[in-house]
């Protein structure tokens, strides 16, 4: 009996062993992978969902939950088949591999996924993956290239084109060792790839852009080639990516190890060239925008084998002149789309009940950054819900493009024959330098009145309250605009403030000045200096006449007045004998006093000569008198000062 139980148990274990793999694989095998766990804003991340199913039904409808903060392209879906031996069974699995390209638009930590597929009517989900998005320009760590030291191996590695799997193997060493014409086996570089001169005798980077002038939103392709003159090299870890804060970037070359290696000879030296970076850049603003240098490490025996950083070289920074698309001819509602696009739309169904919905599917295809929104034909009773987007990115050469499908759900709340109008897309074509508006006529939809049963709830809905837009009405007439400038803005206002009081003050000042001038004039009229000058003038005039006595009296009078001006003394009242001493005592110099006394004495003597007066003597005397008057009048006016002092004393 016990033996029977043991046999039964053995059969049971065998059955379980046979059934176990099937049970284990009856669930779909889903795996979500990302190309990098850390990217920076503007960089593109590749997310791959591998779904394998043991059943005959292949997984379909791959889906990926992507948080806000990413632009999504894809998925591109490929089919896979896998045969494996598990336990005692050979198993065949079919599946798909769906790939999305996510471009980060905001920094932060995000959870990508879960990814899901549909298998046999069921939805199977893979785990979510957390990634970190760094601010733009902070240069996220690039994923380690696979295939060198463990892990998956790339199908063809240009850094080891002959498959020796030795990172430090040197191409030229092998050539010298007669491995057999390896250098010549590399394809020859195109002439435009070869720089005019080697920028460095060992290694250098050559950065190029396809255009130096672009408009905002136009694709600028940055291509960077690494040129090595010392044999094979590989990229060292820690490259610093080019900064491009004013551009939105999309990498065109994700892994340089998939790029072909070219050879060329320049000045007798053999070089190899590899495209290490290629990025589509979309300017975000106008101005002189700079693309920073790529800092790249050449790793190889003849470069810098002993350091992990390799031989560091940098590309040159590049400045792009970016302008806004022209204002002339710009259509209303232009949203900044640049490229060349086509538009088609599908509406279904064309017959619904009021309150029902229709689907409007619009597909935009073309080259350039795909538009993010379309211009919708709004109207009352037609409610356009937010569209779901599906992208199918493509690359033609280095031109980014593809198609984007906008799936709109449109709710129709008004019954009748409704013309949906025209949906449109405006864009600027940088090739033709013209704007273009693509309209698509969506046609008409018949909307039946809402069924009676369905209308009841809406009738019971509370009435809509007054809206703000009911407060204002559109103004159809443009009146004359108010004056562009304020009356107090001009300098005239400040002059107006200053001129009245200042004008009155000036007027008062002018009056006072006039009075003072008059007073001065009157005082001047009384001055001995003026009288002395007048007496001299009369003497000069008399010199021409017959009566020379007038010359003497004029000269004498002028001298007396000048003495009174300079000393305050009335010299006429003094005796001739004491004149010189009194003049000296009044402050005149001894010589001057003596000369004054002498001239006055001579005047007296000559006057006694009467008719026998000699004209030459009179002239000489007048000359001396003039000289003395001039010297005396240069003295400070003692007469006025003493007179003033006298007035003060009297006061």
């Amino acid at each position, binding site marked *: 009996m016990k033996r029977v139980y043991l046999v039964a148990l053995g059969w049971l274990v065998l059955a379980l062993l046979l059934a176990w793999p099937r049970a284990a694989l009856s669930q779909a095998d889903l795996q979500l992978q990302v190309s990098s766990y850390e990217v920076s804003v503007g960089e593109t991340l590749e997310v791959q969902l591998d779904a394998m199913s043991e059943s005959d039904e292949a997984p379909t409808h791959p889906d990926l939950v992507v948080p806000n903060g990413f632009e999504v392209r894809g998925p591109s879906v490929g089919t896979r088949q896998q045969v494996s031996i598990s336990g005692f069974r050979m198993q065949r699995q079919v599946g798909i591999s769906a790939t999305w390209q996510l471009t980060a638009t905001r920094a932060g930590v995000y959870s990508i996924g879960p990814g899901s597929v549909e298998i046999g009517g069921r939805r199977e989900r893979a785990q979510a993956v957390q990634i970190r998005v760094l601010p733009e320009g902070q240069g996220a760590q690039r994923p380690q290239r696979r295939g060198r030291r463990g892990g998956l191996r790339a199908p063809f590695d240009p850094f080891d084109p002959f498959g020796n799997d030795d990172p430090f193997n040197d191409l030229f060493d092998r050539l010298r060792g007669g491995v057999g014409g390896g250098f010549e086996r590399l394809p020859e570089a195109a002439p435009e790839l070869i720089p005019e001169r080697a920028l460095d005798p060992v290694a250098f980077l050559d950065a190029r852009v396809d255009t130096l002038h672009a408009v905002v939103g136009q694709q600028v392709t940055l291509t960077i080639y690494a040129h090595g003159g010392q044999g094979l090299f590989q990229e060292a870890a820690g490259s610093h990516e080019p900064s491009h804060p004013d551009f939105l970037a999309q990498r065109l070359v994700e892994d340089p190890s998939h790029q072909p290696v070219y050879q060329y000879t320049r000045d007798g030296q053999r070089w190899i060239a590899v495209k290490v970076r290629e990025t589509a850049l979309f300017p975000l603003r106008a101005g002189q925008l700079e693309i920073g240098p790529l800092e790249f490490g050449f790793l190889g025996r003849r470069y810098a084998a002993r350091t992990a950083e390799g031989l560091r070289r940098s590309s040159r920074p590049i400045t792009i002149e970016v302008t806004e698309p022209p204002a002339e001819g710009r259509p209303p*509602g232009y949203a900044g789309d640049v490229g060349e696009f086509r538009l088609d739309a599908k509406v279904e169904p064309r017959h619904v009940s009021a309150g029902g919905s229709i689907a409007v599917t619009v597909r935009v295809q073309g080259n350039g950054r795909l538009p993010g929104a379309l211009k919708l*034909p709004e109207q009352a009773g037609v409610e356009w819900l937010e569209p779901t987007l599906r992208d199918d990115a493509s690359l033609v050469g280095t031109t980014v493009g593809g198609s984007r499908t906008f799936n709109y759900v449109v709710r129709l709340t008004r019954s009748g024959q409704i013309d949906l109008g025209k949906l449109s897309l405006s864009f600027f074509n940088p090739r033709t330098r013209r704007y273009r508006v693509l309209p698509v006529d969506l046609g008409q939809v018949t909307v039946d009145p809402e069924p009676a049963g369905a209308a009841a709830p809406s009738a019971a809905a509370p009435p809509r309250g007054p809206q*703000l837009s009911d407060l204002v009405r559109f103004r*159809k007439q443009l009146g004359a605009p*108010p004056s562009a*400038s304020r009356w107090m803005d001009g300098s005239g206002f400040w002059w*107006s*403030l200053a001129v009245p009081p200042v004008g009155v003050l000036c*007027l008062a000042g002018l*009056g006072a000045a006039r009075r003072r001038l008059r007073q001065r004039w009157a005082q001047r009229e009384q001055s001995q200096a003026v009288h002395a000058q007048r007496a001299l003038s009369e003497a000069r005039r008399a010199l021409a006449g017959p009566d020379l006595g007038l010359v003497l009296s004029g000269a004498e009078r002028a001298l007396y007045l000048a003495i009174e001006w300079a000393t305050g003394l009335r010299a006429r009242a003094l005796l001739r004998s004491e004149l010189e001493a009194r003049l000296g005592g009044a402050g005149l110099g001894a010589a001057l006093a003596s000369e004054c006394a002498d001239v006055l004495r001579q005047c007296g003597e000559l006057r006694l000569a009467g008719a026998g007066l000699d004209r030459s003597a009179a002239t000489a005397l007048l000359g001396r008198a003039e000289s003395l008057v001039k010297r005396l009048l240069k003295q400070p006016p003692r007469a006025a000062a003493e007179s003033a002092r006298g007035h003060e004393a009297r006061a």
Partner: protein
Amino acid sequence: MNGRGKPARAAWLLAAVLCAWCARLVAAEAAPAPPSVDLAPLDAAIARGSFSEAIDQLEQWSDQGLVHPTLSFDRGVAYLGRAESSARKPSDLGQAAAAFEEALVLDPSDDEARAVLGRIRETISERRAKEHASSVVARPRLLRALTGLVGEDLWAGTALLGSLLLAAGLGLRLFLRSHEMRLSGSIAAVTGGCLLALGGGMTAAGQHLRRSFSPAVVIVEEARLLDAQGRPVSVARGPSAQDAAGDRVPEGSLVYIAEARGALLKVEWGDDMAWLNASQVRRLASAGPPGSPSTAAGG
């Protein structure tokens, strides 16, 4: 007395000339011709609920430099209509507030724009209250509050009156001999001087604020205040903010731009200065002379 009669007559003549000059100064300039645009299609678009079509056209005119209070008002109507339609976009109410604020800047006598702007701000406050967002009350800067007390026109008029009064007082004081007249002149001169200083000072302050700052309106739900490096300010911003939400500026708020640096704008918010992201505010067009901060591009 006879000798003083001539200056007195001259003073009265001067006063008359100055009064005439002031009258000419204050008199409105000839209004420029309105831009020739057809608003009928936009009216029709709004009537059938196609608000975006009207907005696109009005925005294009705005980009082309067409400045007119009616165009700003109509833009506000279009944004307001879309904000209350099924096609609403997040910044529509802020854009409507900006458009009506611009209409008021261009035509301060537009009471309809003032009324609807007040209602929009009330609506935004109510919406924030429903969303349990804290209220933010920002006291205006003292100088701005003073200049805005009676308006720049009135301050300038006060300064002009003060100037004339000062001139008349000085004239009486200096040209007339009568004791009573000289006393009256002194009083008038002192009063006029005070009015001139006050009115002139406030007018100059108003002009300084107008020329150094350009008004703008926040068009996003909340604009976070930043420091000069663009980092968010994480603490309440002083006594003007009533609570911890003082580091955010609500939608529809009026701020004054002092400086633009890259994507950042230095703004006067309440009685303090801070930085905002330029894309979160809309700079208002003004009818000022070209090149003044209000009409310069940006924001």
